[in-house]
């Protein structure tokens, strides 16, 4: 006969009741789960001897029943050991120990306290093998994330973002490149950190086979907070305030002002005075002599001479950059019981950039709701609406990026405060140089780039339990956004001739997935568990873009398409383009992928696991006959400590794992058939041209093969943990647009043969140096990852040896070269003595400047040798302190800030030899072909012109760095202090991010920079400096 047992399960750490704990009579399926206050009641048969208590995130406990009718128990949290659960493909929670591949978690609390407006940046330094590069310090700029190195020669190398089982779009519609443009951020930055419960990084293709092609680069799985575990009504408020300032600014000289050859005198800044339109600082010494300047008073039509002095070395740093300010406020309401839960959250982000008149503002509303309609039928939904508005600065080497002027082409006597007051007092674009430059405040104040993105990400999931081990699920997910960009270029800007120019761009993006799943979890025998899933999915992607420009506006200062004086220009047309408006090749793109997939995982005695997956896709982008492709994966893991019953030894946990996966991939739409693009008409004659890309009707799917093996070890009651993973990937039949010699008639061709391989190692080491029972807690997490990458081939015939991925505006290519590492920087190097006593020395010409080697060469690679990070965490009675340092070692970048800053005499470096000239370190070639030490002196102006203009090698630097990424000091008020109040928790933390560039070899810039988040990295193009941020966070739970 049965009898009743009841009790309460609590969290050992705080004594609070734990809901949802599974209480089972061991050896049976008889059980119950605890209520919201942690209590349970269970009817057990007389034969029952033991109860087991299990809950995700807690150490499982077994208790003999004996004769007790009440069993209370406290569970201790377990983040390290056997019960750890991670969210993997399709939003499934799986035991980490059962996985044959590497995954790593980041908790949401870490993201909200150490806040980044772009959530991608928060992962920097935290996850082994994940490289994050934030492009610039502009508010809302994009970030690039690459896991285990680039796998695609030319395509997307960034992971898929998945929220609650829903893949979301992470496009970047930025048009910033070496020549200018706007960085509109990457779309995943819309995800609000406040709504994130956990982020899990699935690193390899193994982890991602079930997501399809887009998982080949890894997957970032985001689980949002839900109301499910709430007990009654809960309110939480989170507020973060932070301040931003430039992390690193070039070292400017303050000894010599504008001009050339030591001569300067201002008349109109347009060439009427002596060198008054020269935008370099090779002018007179800033010694207080009297010279007419743009700020000098004009008396009777004559500009007076005023003292020629420096406004200070740090004029730009102190006075041009403003302190950025970010305020984020979040309030969330949760409510629920054991049958249903709701969480509603509202977040407001208001960021003021470090550049004048730039900002990013975002409002997010998130609804997460789920309910058990019946015991068998569940419904859940997550709907997120965000509205993002930005006012963004120009980027790249362009007059509309103010850094181009301030960092390089600048008169060092110019006080930026004078420029500001000129602009603010109605001077419009008046400035120090009327020929080539704008007033930077005018550019930021009037040549504005505004954008607005409205986005809804939502899903609806219905699940029905056919039996206690078989569920069926139907799910629809939608990610829809509309972006509206407005670019204004006033007539007064120097490159814009006579009219105001206005451009509107509209982008509409949709991703829709419709999915049916059946999942099963069943113990086949006592020792054998089967976890099984089959599904079908249809994915539709639609992107519509249009760009309309009014290059000549009628009424000045009225930026509206209706105000156009000439016919509007649609930049959906290729051909002749006007300023800053790049053409859009495919304004409308549609793609559909149908899929059937399945997975099965078998567990033996809960210590040995084997998983297999398989997926077949049919993609609309490939021709019939080539558009169906299947790809499988298999992985296995064995927990050795359990398999061999190892207990009570120094080794607390040991697991080995391994896996193999293939992922197939399709291509972009419309790459099968050649096209003719239209251009602007010539008078009334329409125009057309053969498009310069040769398409390919025979494209076959790409394929990535990936193998990984790993070991996870923990020692001394888990106080030491070590996880090591080795992997190899091979991506073949890559669909690449190879740059072809224009002599072929096309500048590129779509080929289907590229192959690239990666191999690497990742390690994660965790240490708890102090005893778990001591009041002071100290945890160290260190990660290290090295990836070696090789470009194997481009075409089967081997005709193509090199592929240009991108290039700087001044002759440095980023290339993939057969047999070499990805990301070669290729350009002009110094001519060096090949051999003999002067071997390796730079050869100087008769004018005393270095000669160029006529054979261009690889000047470096942007891909690093290794990356790593270390986090130290200390906890003491509610106070937590943590610090993260991360590093990238190896890799190079070419810097235009340094190239032009030296050329133009703006940097301190150019003070050498100002008065006496310079004899460069190197040799001269004698008439007989021998060499002698260089004995030709050049003026500093000629020397720096030649040294930096002729040779790109002179501005290539080692991109290694060590950064103090984050420091956080937090304090959680002890429960005892607030017990009697209505407040459930109060915490406060002080956080600094990107605080200190501890070591770096690239002068004056943060080497972690780029002009966008694409594959063209390793080029610095007078970039907006990255920011240091510091601030505080308060959270309150009611």
């Amino acid at each position, binding site marked *: 006969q049965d009898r009743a047992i009841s009790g309460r399960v609590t969290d050992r750490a705080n004594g609070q009741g734990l809901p949802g704990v599974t209480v089972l009579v061991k050896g049976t399926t008889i059980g119950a789960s605890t209520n919201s206050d942690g209590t349970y009641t269970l009817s057990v048969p007389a034969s029952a001897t033991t109860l087991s208590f299990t809950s995700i995130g807690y150490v499982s406990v077994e208790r003999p029943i004996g004769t007790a009718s009440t069993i209370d128990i406290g569970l201790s949290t377990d983040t390290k050991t056997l019960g750890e659960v991670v969210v993997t493909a399709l939003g499934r929670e799986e035991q980490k120990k059962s996985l044959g591949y590497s995954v790593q978690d980041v908790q949401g609390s870490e993201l909200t306290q150490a806040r980044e407006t772009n959530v991608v940046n928060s992962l920097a330094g935290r996850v082994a093998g994940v490289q994050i590069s934030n492009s610039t310090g502009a508010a809302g700029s994009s970030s690039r994330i690459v896991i285990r190195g680039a796998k695609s020669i030319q395509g997307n190398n960034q992971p898929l973002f998945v929220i609650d089982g829903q893949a979301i779009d992470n496009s970047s519609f930025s048009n910033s490149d070496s020549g200018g443009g706007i960085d509109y951020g990457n779309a995943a930055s819309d995800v609000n950190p406040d709504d994130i419960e956990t982020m899990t990084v699935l690193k390899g293709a193994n982890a991602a086979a079930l997501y399809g092609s887009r998982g080949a680069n890894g997957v970032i799985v985001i689980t949002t907070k839900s109301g499910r575990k709430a007990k009654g009504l809960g309110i939480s408020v989170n507020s973060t305030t932070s301040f931003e300032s430039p992390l690193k600014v070039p070292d400017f000289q303050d000894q010599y002002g504008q001009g*050339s*050859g030591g001569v300067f005198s201002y*008349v109109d800044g*347009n*060439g*009427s005075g*002596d*060198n008054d339109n*020269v935008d370099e600082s*090779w002018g007179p010494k800033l010694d207080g002599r009297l010279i007419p300047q743009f700020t000098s008073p004009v008396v009777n039509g004559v500009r007076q001479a005023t003292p020629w002095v420096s406004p200070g070395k740090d004029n730009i740093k102190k006075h041009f950059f403003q302190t950025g300010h970010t305020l984020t406020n979040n309030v969330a309401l949760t409510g629920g019981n054991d049958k249903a839960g709701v969480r509603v959250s509202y977040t407001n982000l208001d960021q003021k950039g470090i550049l004048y008149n730039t900002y990013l503002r975002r409002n997010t509303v998130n609804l997460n709701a789920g309910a058990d309609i019946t015991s068998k039928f569940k419904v859940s939904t997550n709907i997120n609406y965000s509205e993002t508005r930005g006012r963004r600065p120009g980027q790249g080497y362009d007059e509309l990026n103010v850094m181009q002027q301030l960092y390089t082409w600048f008169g060092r006597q110019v006080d930026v405060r004078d420029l500001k007051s000129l602009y603010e007092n109605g001077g419009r674009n008046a400035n120090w140089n009327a020929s080539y430059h704008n007033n930077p405040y005018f550019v930021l104040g009037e040549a504005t780039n505004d954008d607005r993105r409205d986005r809804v990400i939502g899903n609806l999931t219905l699940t029905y339990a056919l039996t206690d081990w078989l569920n069926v699920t139907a799910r629809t997910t939608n990610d829809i956004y509309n972006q509206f960009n407005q670019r204004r270029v006033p007539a007064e800007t120097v*490159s814009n001739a006579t009219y105001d120019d206005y451009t509107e761009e509209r982008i509409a993006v949709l991703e829709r997935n419709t999915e049916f799943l059946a999942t099963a979890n069943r113990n086949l025998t006592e020792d054998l568990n089967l976890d099984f899933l089959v599904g079908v999915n249809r994915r539709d992607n639609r992107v519509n873009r249009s760009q309309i420009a009014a290059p000549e506006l009628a009424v000045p200062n009225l930026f509206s398409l209706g105000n156009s004086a000439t016919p509007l220009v649609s930049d959906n047309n290729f051909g*002749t*383009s*006007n300023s800053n408006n790049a053409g859009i090749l495919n304004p*409308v793109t549609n793609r*559909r992928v149908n899929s059937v997939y399945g997975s099965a995982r078998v567990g033996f005695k809960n210590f040995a696991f084997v998983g297999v997956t398989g997926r077949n896709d*049919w993609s609309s982008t490939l021709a*019939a006959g080539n*558009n169906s492709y299947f790809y499988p994966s298999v992985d296995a893991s064995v927990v050795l400590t359990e398999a061999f019953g190892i207990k009570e030894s120094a080794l607390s946990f040991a697991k080995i794992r391994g896996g193999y996966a293939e992922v197939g991939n399709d291509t972009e*739409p*419309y790459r099968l*058939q050649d*096209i*003719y*693009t*239209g*251009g602007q008409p*010539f*008078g009334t*004659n*329409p125009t*057309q*041209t*053969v498009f310069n890309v040769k398409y390919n009707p025979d494209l076959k799917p790409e394929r990535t093969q990936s193998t990984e093996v790993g070991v996870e070890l923990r020692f001394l009651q888990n106080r030491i943990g070590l996880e090591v993973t080795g992997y190899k990937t091979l991506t073949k039949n890559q669909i690449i647009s*190879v*740059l*072809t*010699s*224009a*002599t*072929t*008639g*096309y*500048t590129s061709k779509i080929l289907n043969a590229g192959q690239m391989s990666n191999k690497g190692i990742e390690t994660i080491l965790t240490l708890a140096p102090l005893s778990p029972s001591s009041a002071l807690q100290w945890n160290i997490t260190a990660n290290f990852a090295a990836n070696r990458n090789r470009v194997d081939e481009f075409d089967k*015939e081997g*005709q193509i*040896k090199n592929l*240009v991925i991108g290039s700087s505006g*001044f*002759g440095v290519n980023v290339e993939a070269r057969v047999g070499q590492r990805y990301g070669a920087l290729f350009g*002009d190097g110094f001519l060096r003595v090949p051999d003999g006593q002067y071997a390796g020395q730079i050869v100087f*010409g008769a*004018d005393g*400047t270095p*000669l*160029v080697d*006529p*054979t*261009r060469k690889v000047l470096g690679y942007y891909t690093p040798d290794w990356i790593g990070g270390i986090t130290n965490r200390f906890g003491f009675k509610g106070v937590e302190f943590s610090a993260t340092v991360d590093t990238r070692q190896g890799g190079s970048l070419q810097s235009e800030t340094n190239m032009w800053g030296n050329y133009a005499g703006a940097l301190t470096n150019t003070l050498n030899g100002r008065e006496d000239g310079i004899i460069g370190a190197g040799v001269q070639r004698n008439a007989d072909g021998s060499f002698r030490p260089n004995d030709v002196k050049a003026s500093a102006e*000629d020397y720096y012109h030649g040294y930096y203009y002729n040779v790109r090698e002179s501005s290539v630097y080692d991109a290694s760095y060590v950064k103090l990424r984050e420091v956080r000091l937090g304090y959680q008020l002890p429960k005892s202090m607030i017990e009697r109040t209505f407040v459930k928790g109060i915490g406060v933390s002080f956080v600094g991010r990107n605080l200190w560039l501890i070591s770096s070899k690239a002068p004056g810039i943060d080497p972690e920079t780029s002009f966008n988040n694409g594959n063209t990295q390793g080029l610095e193009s007078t970039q907006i400096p990255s920011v240091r941020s510091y601030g505080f966070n308060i959270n309150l739970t009611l």
Partner: protein
Amino acid sequence: CTKEFEAINTNPNNATTANPAYLLTNAERANIFRLFDIPANQDGGELIIQHWAKIQYTTEDQYGFRATSYQSIWDGFYAAGLQDFNQLIAIGKQTNNPNLQAVGLVMRSYLFSVLTDLYGDIPYSQALRLGENVLTPKYDSQEAVYTGLLADLKSASSLIQTTGGGVDGDIIFGGNMVKWQKFANSLRLRLAMRIVDAKEATAKAEIAELLNGTTPLMTSNADIAQFKFLGSTPNTNPIYENRLTRDDHRISRSIVSVLRRRNDPRLPIYADKPTCGDSAAFYRGVRNGLTTSAASALGPLCSTSKVGAYFLAPTAPGVLQTYSEVLFLKAEAIARGYVTGVAATEYQNAIKASMEQYGITDAAAITTYLAQPNVVYNAANYKESIGVQKWIALFGQGVEAWSEWRRLDYPKLPVAATPAAAAAGKIPVRFRYPANEQSINTASRAEAVARQGADLITTKLWWDKL
């Protein structure tokens, strides 16, 4: 489940078939724009040949040509120019439209000749064949290129049917096939004369055939092959477009002094007077190849002479070949004894045609000009007479002026004041191959360099024997 795929992947954005009229309009516009744009003309031929000089960003005037410039000339002419004309030739064949085929052949030949005159050996026979998977076209010798071009122009002329319809979308001659035929033959005359020092027998035979009196050639300024740009963007002259934002170019001191010594009535058209400074009453040309500091020492921008307003207008024509040039070629052919005639007469008519081209029609003034000792035709040194006058007449046509100077070696021009080391103290005689050929057509380029000589701006081309 895949039956809608074909519809989904049908390109909704761009045409998959061409309209030859639209292709022709764009190919003419884009390539003639390119011929007169910064890299080939304004910072290329016009500086090297000392029609123009630079007072700001003087690097190119010192023969420091940017790697990106060679690239844009090469990529533009091959992928956006030759490719389109090649397509037109193919469409002409397919649709049995010999006139379209001929126009394509003439323009393709023109662009190939520009490319080979700039670089020397170039991809020709294997060029434009990506459809046959030729990914890395071999370079042909310049001799082979010229052989091919002369043959193409001959067949173009014979393809033309002057009765019946012309071609649609033609902005150069408005579809007038009589003029196209004259242009085809006049261009062939230019190219035949170009190889006269390298392959005289061929040149002589070609020239004799062309000047036999029955082959149609340009016969007046109405036959000039030129492209008339429009008054508004994006269809304006590239020099106008450059001057919207830049003011770096000035008239060269070299041409100002040659014109002034001859009281040449073309001077006020070629140049404007300064608007400030001591020399506002005179044409103040700028020495070529100044350093930035030497150029700024000249004084304010307004104190030196700009290129004449005629050339800066949005509608200024892009000139491919003039009647005057044909007469100079005829004079030279007579001087070389290839055909009979009076060289001095053709020479004088050539100068006269050049003047008339700019609206200088005062017969007495022209007669006075022609009678000057430094203008009178010198049979003993016809290369100097023709070289100097042709150089004047080709003002604005930088690439052709540079080629003819290299061939005739007149006028004697000074080297840039401070030449870049790469020039080895000489005026450049070619451009370097574009940088990307080293990356993506490595072996073919290397083979050309081995045959032609080092890839330097000092390496002489095949036809530049003297």
